């Protein structure tokens, strides 16, 4: 119980990942979906760092990859918010259910 190992971290990561997916499925708001994506990425990132810590063979490859993930997530968020703005400009809403009109 008090001996924290790899599995503990993986369980937290898994739960965060699944909750992210749940958010992505259930939220109608485009930015809500974006929040779900961030949660999924964070869950994955915990995995990377945890494996690096417990199974890293002395190097930090896992951390470098997680660094890339963070940077990519930031880029993705910037672009996604821009898309949301465009979406809002055209349809006057950010409800993704309205995104099926081609005549945006």
């Amino acid at each position: 119980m008090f001996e924290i190992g790899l599995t503990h971290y993986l369980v937290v990561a898994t739960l965060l990942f699944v909750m992210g997916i749940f958010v992505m499925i259930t939220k109608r708001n485009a930015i809500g979906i974006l929040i779900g994506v961030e949660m999924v990425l964070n869950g994955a990132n915990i995995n990377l760092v945890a494996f690096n810590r417990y199974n890293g063979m002395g190097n930090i490859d896992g951390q470098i990859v997680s660094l890339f993930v963070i940077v990519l997530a930031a880029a993705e968020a910037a672009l996604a918010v821009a898309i949301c703005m465009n979406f809002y400009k055209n349809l006057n809403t950010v409800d993704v259910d309205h995104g099926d009109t081609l005549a945006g």
Partner: protein
Amino acid sequence: MTLRLKKILLLMTPLAIAMFIAAAPVHAADTDLSLSDQGIQTSADGGLLEALMFYACAGVILASGLAICLSKNIVRMAVYLFGTLAAVALMYFLLLANFIGVIQLIVYAGGTLILLIFGVMLTSKSPWAKFEVKRSELIAAGVVCALFAGMLLFVVVNAEWPLETDAVVVGSSMTQFGTGLLTNYLVPFEAISVLLLVVMIGAAYMARQE
């Protein structure tokens, strides 16, 4: 006490502060001035404290994650996400990945999250815009996610991870990061920088007004 004497005494005050604080000095003449970067471990070496910290972090992550799932208010979701991100950063510190932790804070919490809130502000008509979800959808999503979580957890808990329990645990050092990024990971590093440039231009293009 005459006024003059009082004034002199009051003028002495800063001097006194200076002397008394300075009297506990650490002069740096004997400090090691080597340029090398020693990775200094910040988290405790296992034991109860680490366990407590871990459970606290995990609690915050899961609680705020759950709150995101259940909340209908988009701004509140973003604030809960802040809780998740900060707790994940703390978890990185526990995992001795200090650099990743601070990068998580500065990029995620300080940048991405603000961007998200900014997006919310710009795209919601009323402050408390709500998007109702059908109950059937909610139940379906819950079932799917529960199954998925069960499956993943089963794998995670039962898998035999080849652990190097006795391996030397080192904190990440900046030197390692620099070397890694400019040797083994040079191509992805450059690719990401190009991607960032593309994203910057693309985002500016998409958000601008025709």
